[in-house]
């Protein structure tokens, strides 16, 4: 007679059922409805919408700025996580709490604040103007806003992993004659990379869809600083629901492919 392995937490049937219902109501049905709505379009119509030069320009801008923001956070975020985990210094708890502020703040408020600061008349914008470049109302400004809203992702995914790497491992490596860079290259990077990729992917995905904080600093000039979510709003303001969902589907598919690639990459790193 085979023995049933009883899990530590009982009620698998109930929890799985709950999970499925919950995910369906919250994620699956709304996203599915979008595909169904977009399916009203013929393939030719769909193609005409998503291959319009304005949509392509916005697509390029949205994904490029989100990617740039994720890269910046990948570097700065690692630095922040490192400083917060590895050192004790006065005010560490306060700084640690500040990391989450971009999540708590309404994105529109962040957008207005950033614009006021980085617009040509703003305190930082003035310095930039004096140096001969513009921040607000350029792709640089969009990247800045996206960097702000996605800051917590990399920091918060790296922190626990960093804290879990035992000091002894590094010490052992050092005892065996590894130079600091070799310790970093062969001990820390492999341990951190999967979490880093997760943080990067989260930041990137969030940046692609971000609307509230970007809309004030972007300038919204067609073909130049118009983000993809704004084009969806534009379509909706013309009561063109199908056109809007077509762009939504496009974003979803592109994001999904990119996230899938990042996931596959992560798997390969985890089991060498």
């Amino acid at each position, binding site marked *: 007679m085979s023995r049933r392995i009883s899990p530590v937490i009982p009620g698998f049937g109930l929890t799985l059922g709950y999970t499925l219902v919950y995910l369906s109501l919250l994620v699956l049905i709304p996203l599915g409805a979008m595909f169904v709505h977009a399916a009203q379009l013929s393939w030719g119509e769909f193609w005409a919408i998503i291959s319009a030069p304005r949509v392509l320009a916005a697509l390029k801008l949205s994904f490029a700025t989100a990617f740039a923001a994720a890269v910046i956070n990948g570097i700065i975020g690692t630095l922040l996580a490192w400083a917060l985990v590895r050192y004790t210094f006065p005010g560490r708890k306060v700084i640690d709490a500040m990391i989450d502020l971009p999540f708590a703040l309404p994105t529109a408020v962040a957008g*207005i604040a950033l614009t006021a600061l980085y617009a040509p008349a703003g305190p930082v914008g003035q310095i930039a103007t004096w140096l001969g470049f513009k921040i607000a109302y350029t792709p640089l400004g969009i990247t800045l806003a996206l960097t702000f809203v996605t800051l917590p992702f990399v920091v918060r995914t790296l922190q626990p992993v960093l804290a879990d790497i035992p000091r002894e491992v590094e010490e052992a490596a050092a005892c065996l004659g590894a130079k600091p860079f070799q310790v970093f290259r062969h001990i820390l990077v492999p341990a951190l990379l999967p979490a880093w990729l997760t943080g990067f992917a989260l930041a990137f995905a969030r940046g692609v869809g971000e609307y509230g904080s970007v809309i004030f600093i972007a*300038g919204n000039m067609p073909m130049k600083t118009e983000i993809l979510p704004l084009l969806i709003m534009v379509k909706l303001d013309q009561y063109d629901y199908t056109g809007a969902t077509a762009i939504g589907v496009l974003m979803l598919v592109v994001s999904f492919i990119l996230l899938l690639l990042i996931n596959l990459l992560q798997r390969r790193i985890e089991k060498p």
Partner: protein
Amino acid sequence: MSIRRFALAALASALITGPAAAATEILNVSYDPTRELYQEFNAAFNKHWTAQGKEAVTVQQSHGGSGKQARAVIDGLRADVVTLALAGDIDELNKLGKLIPADWQSRLPQSSTPYTSTIVFLVRKGNPEGIKDWDDLVKPGVEVITPNPKTSGGARWNFLAAWAFAQQKYGSEAKAQEFVEKLYKNVPVLDTGARGSTITFVNNQIGDVLLAWENEAFLALKEQGGDQFEIVAPSLSILAEPPVAVVDKNVDKKGTREVATAYLNYLYSEEGQRIAAKNFYRPRNEAVAAEYAKQFPQLKLVTIDQDFNGWKTAQPKFFNDGGIFDQIYQAQ
């Protein structure tokens, strides 16, 4: 408390408060710059309504971009009345939502527009660029701030005012298109709404001139104490007509038709008109208009119905995908 008893209690409280609250509450879904106007008007209406021996009514206000607000109502927001920036947006309540009849605009006086406004220029104190009329906006180096007509009702009035000026002065549609093309080349930022543009111009100090609703320009002047900006009235502008309507399907379901209708009618009363004028909207009532004549600059106004054949023609021609506004940016 057992679940059943809790459920019973919840149900009972819903039964008690539900209908009672519905009978005395109406929702006015409006666009952005009417916030101050309706706060004042709602208090006045309530006084007027209870003076007739009726039960006091709470008017909930909802504000946002005009198109967005219309969409919310179509998607199920239970508005009793809508007071939007363009007739075109209310038309969609008929077309997409079947919430009101097609002839809604003929149900109230003056094409259901109790107050009007127009588009004026707000410039920095002393008018350093010497901006007096639309021609000055297309000069090289002048920065013009206006929102995006694709997302803002106010911006559509701005666009059409510039178009009307160019067409009358230079005589052809082709010339008018050339003119607005030049004008939009001078626009460094396209905000999504009228308030956004005001913030860009006033707080972030971008641009030399803001194309604004007249009431919004006066409000900016009032808030800043008038020492940083001044209003310039162009030689010609457009009569902006933000209309109002009772949402039939919703009031019939909620049983609020009487109060909703009275609410909108009261906008036409002398007191309603005076409150509109105090909030820098141009009143329709001639006596009240005469009282406040000094407040509003005199200028030649074209109208959407006579000069553009109404929103039903203007919207697709100018602002829908592939329309003239898109062509301007496609050409660049």
